[in-house]
């Protein structure tokens, strides 16, 4: 069969709900998109550890410290599980774990904008658990229906672990919200700092050609904007209920259009943070990652050669 026909049949299969396994034939375009998406997902899990691990020594009590460490451990674990999936996909190109991790310190693979930002206060640490994990959960839940079965299976596991992250984040935020005026001020300040980063997290409004391809191959089944709307619907009422002010006076639910109206983030500014690693903490964290990678080389060597 010529490749044109193979591709057409493949698309017909995934569009009718078929799942693809690592050993199945797949078009190069499909493989590339998967590698790009899951590689970015994997390194984002790893880089997402930094803002939170910075708070492990400073957590307000032992239980919070244990919970934060457990969460850090989970996120590293998610990175490992996802890298394994990318390894299988990238094997035909001779790319393994070493190269996939090198790409991160060499700036060849991007990670989510939120992990370039600074976790300045304990409220920031809590807000990351509540809203950043919340946004990530909405994104990951939408990928449970992906056409690539190994990714779907791992996401099922990841989502199950995320339910603890969700409860932990909420618990931290609720206790700050019940605290002193000063603590509540700290929480408001944190929301002000993170709000537009959170909106940006879901990606641009327009459906880019790559995003269109992902929908075509059923790698994704929801658009960025659909997911952002779902996030707003679930979280805005809860943010308001805590007595917090969202730093966007135009934010409201438009019942005629049946969507949340919001002020858009400054797309170019945030895009630069991601594509050029120019966020407040990007370079510092990548440098730390580079040190870890060098110092732990012997561990990876022992794991691959068994010496």
């Amino acid at each position, binding site marked *: 069969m010529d490749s044109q026909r193979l591709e057409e049949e493949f698309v017909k299969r995934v569009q009718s709900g078929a799942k693809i396994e690592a050993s199945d034939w797949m078009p190069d375009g499909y493989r590339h998109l998967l590698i790009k998406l899951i590689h970015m997902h994997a390194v984002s899990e790893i880089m997402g550890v930094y803002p939170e691990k910075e708070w492990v020594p400073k957590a307000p009590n032992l239980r919070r410290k244990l919970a934060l460490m457990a969460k850090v451990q989970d996120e590293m674990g998610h990175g490992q599980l996802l890298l394994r999936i990318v390894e299988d996909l990238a094997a035909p190109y001779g790319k393994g774990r070493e190269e996939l991790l090198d790409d991160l310190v060499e700036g060849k693979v991007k990670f989510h904008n939120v992990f370039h930002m600074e976790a300045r206060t304990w409220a920031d640490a809590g807000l990351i658990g509540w809203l950043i994990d919340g946004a990530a959960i909405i994104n990951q839940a*939408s990928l449970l*229906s992906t056409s690539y079965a190994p990714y779907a*299976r791992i996401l099922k596991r990841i989502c199950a672990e995320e339910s*603890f992250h969700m*409860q932990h984040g909420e618990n931290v935020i609720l206790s700050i919200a019940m605290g002193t005026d000063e603590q509540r001020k700290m929480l408001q300040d944190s929301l002000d700092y993170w709000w537009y980063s959170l909106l940006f997290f879901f990606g641009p409004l327009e459906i880019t050609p790559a995003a269109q391809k992902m929908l075509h191959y059923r790698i994704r089944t929801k658009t960025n904007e659909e997911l952002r709307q*779902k996030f707003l*619907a679930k979280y805005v009422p*809860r943010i308001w*209920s805590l007595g917090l002010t969202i730093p966007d006076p135009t934010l409201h639910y438009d019942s005629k259009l*049946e969507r949340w109206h919001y002020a858009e983030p400054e797309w170019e500014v945030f895009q630069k943070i991601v594509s050029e690693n120019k966020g407040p903490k990007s370079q510092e964290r990548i440098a730390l990652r580079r040190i870890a990678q060098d110092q732990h080389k012997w561990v990876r060597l022992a794991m691959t050669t068994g010496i």
Partner: protein
Amino acid sequence: MEKQTEPSGVYEVFVQRDHLDPMMHVGSLLAPTNELALQLARENFTRREQILQIWVVPRTHIYSAEEDDFHAREMDRSYREVSGYTENGRLWRMFKEKEITLEEIVRYVEQKKQSKHDLHREESHES
């Protein structure tokens, strides 16, 4: 021919029912070769069920922990479990909100189209 004179070995059998399910251990069988083990596994375990994939693994290839305390939990781990945060529901009610669960989010995200009712319900919290 030579293979058939060898004693049969124990194979552990795993099946996968759906692409979204993991491989599940379903039992074991005796067979002289990998190929026969696979045939037998199909006959013994999947006569009715629609399944996607079967694995047969020689028991000698399975390595597992022998010490009893390998899986021991020395301390309370509720801080890393959802069950350690049951007070969230009560705390949200103090703010006139209700808790959310992961299952609720997954259901909500998987909806084909956002229903008008749902958005209104969420929105009405504010007013």
